[in-house]
C-alpha cells in the first residue's frame, strides 16, 4: 500500500518533469493567463493553455487566413491585458489595424514588422521571442522547417514569451517542434431569429496536434470581447489519429 502511494507520487513527479522538458511549463512567472477558451482548454495538458510556447496555425485559403488571424487576435488580447506590446511579423502585411479593436486589442500597442525576405522574417521572429518584454509574438510565414521551429522553441523556453506562427498555404504540412497545430475555418454566422445581416465571427476550430493533450474540433464565436461556445463539441478525432498526434 505504502509503496503504491510512493509510486503514484513518483509517476506524477516524473510526468511533471517530462512536461517541463517538452517545453510545457505550467507556471509562467507564477501567473496563469486566462485565454477564455473555455471548453477547448480541456484539450491541453493540465487544462491550461500552454504559454511560453510556440503555437502553429495553418491556413489554406485567404478566407481561412483572415479567420486564423481573428482567432489569434482574440487569443493575444488576453495576453496583452497584463503586459505591454506585441510584435506582429509578416512578409507582407494584410492585417487592417482598426479591425483589431473588435478583438479586444489596442491596435496602437501592436508593432508591425514587414520583412520582405522569409529568412529575415524568421530571424526577426526569433529575436522577438527572445525579448521578455513582449506580451506575444505573431509570425506570418509560409514555410517553417523542423530546425527553424526548434530554434523558436529554444528561444521561448528561455524567455517565456508565447509565439504564434501562422503559416499561410505552406508547401508541405511538415512536422515541427511547436506544441500545438491549429486550423481555423470560418463558418456561417448565426443571427437572431432570421434577422437580416451578418452575425458575430464564427469559426470551426480544429486542434490537430497538441503535445500531451487531446486534439479535437469545436465551433467558437467571438462576441462581447470573448470566445463563446454556442455549439457543442462537434466531433472527436478517431483514436488512431490521436496516437499519431504530438
Amino acid at each position, binding site marked *: 500500500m505504502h509503496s503504491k502511494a510512493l509510486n503514484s507520487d513518483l509517476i506524477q513527479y516524473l510526468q511533471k518533469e517530462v512536461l517541463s522538458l517538452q517545453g510545457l511549463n505550467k507556471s509562467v512567472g507564477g501567473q496563469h493567463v486566462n485565454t477564455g477558451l473555455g471548453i477547448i482548454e480541456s484539450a491541453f495538458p493540465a487544462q491550461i493553455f500552454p504559454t511560453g510556447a510556440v503555437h502553429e496555425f495553418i491556413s489554406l485559403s*485567404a*478566407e481561412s*487566413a*483572415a*479567420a486564423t*488571424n*481573428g*482567432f489569434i*487576435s482574440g487569443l493575444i488580447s488576453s495576453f496583452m491585458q497584463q*503586459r*505591454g*506590446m506585441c*510584435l506582429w511579423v509578416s512578409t507582407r*502585411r*494584410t*492585417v*487592417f*489595424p*482598426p*479591425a*483589431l*479593436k*473588435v*478583438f479586444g486589442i*489596442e*491596435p*496602437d500597442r*501592436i*508593432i*508591425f*514588422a*514587414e*520583412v520582405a*525576405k522569409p529568412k*529575415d522574417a524568421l*530571424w*526577426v521572429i526569433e*529575436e*522577438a521571442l527572445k*525579448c*521578455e*518584454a*513582449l506580451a506575444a509574438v505573431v509570425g506570418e510565414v509560409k514555410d517553417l522547417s523542423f530546425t527553424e521551429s526548434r530554434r523558436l522553441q529554444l528561444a521561448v523556453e528561455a524567455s517565456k514569451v508565447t509565439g504564434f506562427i501562422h503559416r499561410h498555404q505552406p508547401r508541405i504540412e511538415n512536422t515541427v517542434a511547436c506544441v500545438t497545430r491549429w486550423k481555423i*475555418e*470560418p*463558418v*456561417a*454566422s448565426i*443571427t437572431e431569429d432570421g434577422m*437580416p*445581416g*451578418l*452575425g458575430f*465571427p*464564427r*469559426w470551426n476550430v480544429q486542434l490537430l496536434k497538441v503535445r500531451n493533450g487531446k486534439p479535437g474540433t469545436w465551433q467558437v464565436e*467571438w462576441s462581447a470581447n470573448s470566445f463563446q461556445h454556442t455549439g457543442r463539441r462537434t466531433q472527436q478525432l478517431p483514436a488512431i489519429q490521436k496516437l499519431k498526434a504530438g
Partner: protein
Amino acid sequence: MHRRFLAIWFRHLTTDWWVRKHPELKDTAFLLAAPERGRMIVKAVSSAAQAKGIYANMVVADCRTIFPALQVFDHIPGLERKLLQALAEWCIRYTPVAAVDMPDGLMLDISGCAHLWGGEHAYLKDILNRLRAYGYDVRAAIADTIGAAWGIARYGKITAIITPGTQATALMPLPPHALRLDAAIIARLEKLGLYQVQCFMNMPRSALRRRFGQQLLSRLDQALGQEIEVLEPVCPIIPYQERLPVLEPICTATGIEIALKKMLDKLCTRFTEEGIGLRTCVFKGYRIDGNIQQIQVGTTRPSSNAAHLFKLFELKIPILEPGLGFELFILEATKIEDIPITQDALWNESAHDDVIVSELLDKITGKVGADTIRRYLPAEHYWPERSVTIAASIQDKPAADWRTDIPRPIHILYKPEPIEVSVPIPDYPPMLFIYKGKLHHVSKADGPERIEQEWWIEEGLYRDYYCVEDDKGNRYWLFRSGHYNSREPKWFMHGFFA
C-alpha cells in the same frame, strides 16, 4: 598677477562676412537691410557705402537717392552673434578666456599669454594680421581693464597698447562714448559741454551721481580698474568623438570588437554624466593604405547603453574590410538627444519594458532596415486607405479613439480587386459574385455603408460597402464604386472578415 585685456572691434562685421561669401562684392557699396514698420531699414553697410555717407538705421529709399548704384541684400537676424561666437572660439588659440562682446566685438583676457608670441606688440600684430587676412576690418587695443581696452579700440587715436597703470591718462582725451554709457547720459554730458572724459573724470563723485546716475560712476570705475568686471568666456562644444590610434595594424574582427568596446565605454560614460544619449553613431576605421571604412547604427530612442550599442555594431562589423589592417579608429556620435529622466517604477515594469522593446527594435532595424517597423495610429478619415497613419515614434499615443461601431475587415487588400456580380435591384447587395474565377453565392449581407471620397484630398467616386457572407460561411467586404447611371458601376473586393 597683473591682468591685461584685449578688445577687438569689427567695424563691418556682417558686411565683411558677406564679402567673404561673395568675393565679387569687394570694394562695392552695398548694404544689408530688414523690414521694420513697413519700411526697409539699413542694418549694416559696407565700408565703401559708409564712405558715401550711408549709415545704419537709415531708410533704404533715402540711401538710394544718395547713391543710386547701391546694392541691397537681406539682413540675416542673429548673424552677428553667430559670427562672433565662431570668432571667439577661433581666438581660443590665443588665450583660454575669450568672450563675445555684443554687438560688434570680442574681449580676450590675455593675462600671461602675450609673451608666448614675443611680447604684446607681436601678439597684437599676429591677431590683427590674421583677422585682416580673412577680410575683416578690425581695430584692437590692449589695456589693464575691459572698459579701457573697449574705449581705446573704438575711439583711441594714439596707440593701441596702453602700458600697465596708464589707462587713466589714455582715457582722458577720449569722448564720453568710450565709457560704454547709455545714449541719454551721453546726450546730457554733451549738453553740458563735457566732450571729453578728462572734463568730468576728477569731479566730485557725489555730484556726478546726482546728475548722471550710478551708471556713469561704475563705468568710470570699471575703465580705471577700481571696480572688477567679469567676462563670460565662450565654451566650445567638445564633439562627441573618441579616437583610438593603434600601435600595430588591426585586421581581425576580435581586435575591432575590443577597440569598439573600449571606445563605446568611454563615450557612454560621458553620455551618462551629461544625461544624454545618442541616436546615430558612426564608427570609422582608417586603413594603413589610406582607405576609410565605416559603419553606422541608429537607435529608436536616445541610448547610452554601451552593451546595447555594441550589439548593434556587432551585426555590422563583418561589413568592414580591414585589408592590411586599421591604424586608427574613430567613434563619433552624429546625433544626440537628451534622455528623458524617468523614475523606475517599483511595481509596474512598463518603463523598463519599453527600453527593452526599443532595444529589440534597434536590433531589427539595424539588420533589416528602418522602414520595416511600423506602428499605426487612428486617423480621422472614413476612407479605409486613409483611416490609419504610421506612428512617428514608439512613444506616440493615439490622438483619437479607435472606432468599433463600423465593421472593418481584419484583412484588407492593398488594392481593391475587381469582381463580377449579379445584383437583383440597384442599391441591393449582390446575390452572387465571381472572385478569382470562383463563384460565391451570397447568403447573408449587411449594408450599404456609403463612404464619400474626400474631395479636398482626391477626386473620385464614392463607395458603397457591403459585408457579405457566402453559403460556405466566408465573409467578405465588397464595394460598388459610384452609382447606377447610364453605365454599369464597377464592383470590387476589398477585404476579408474573420
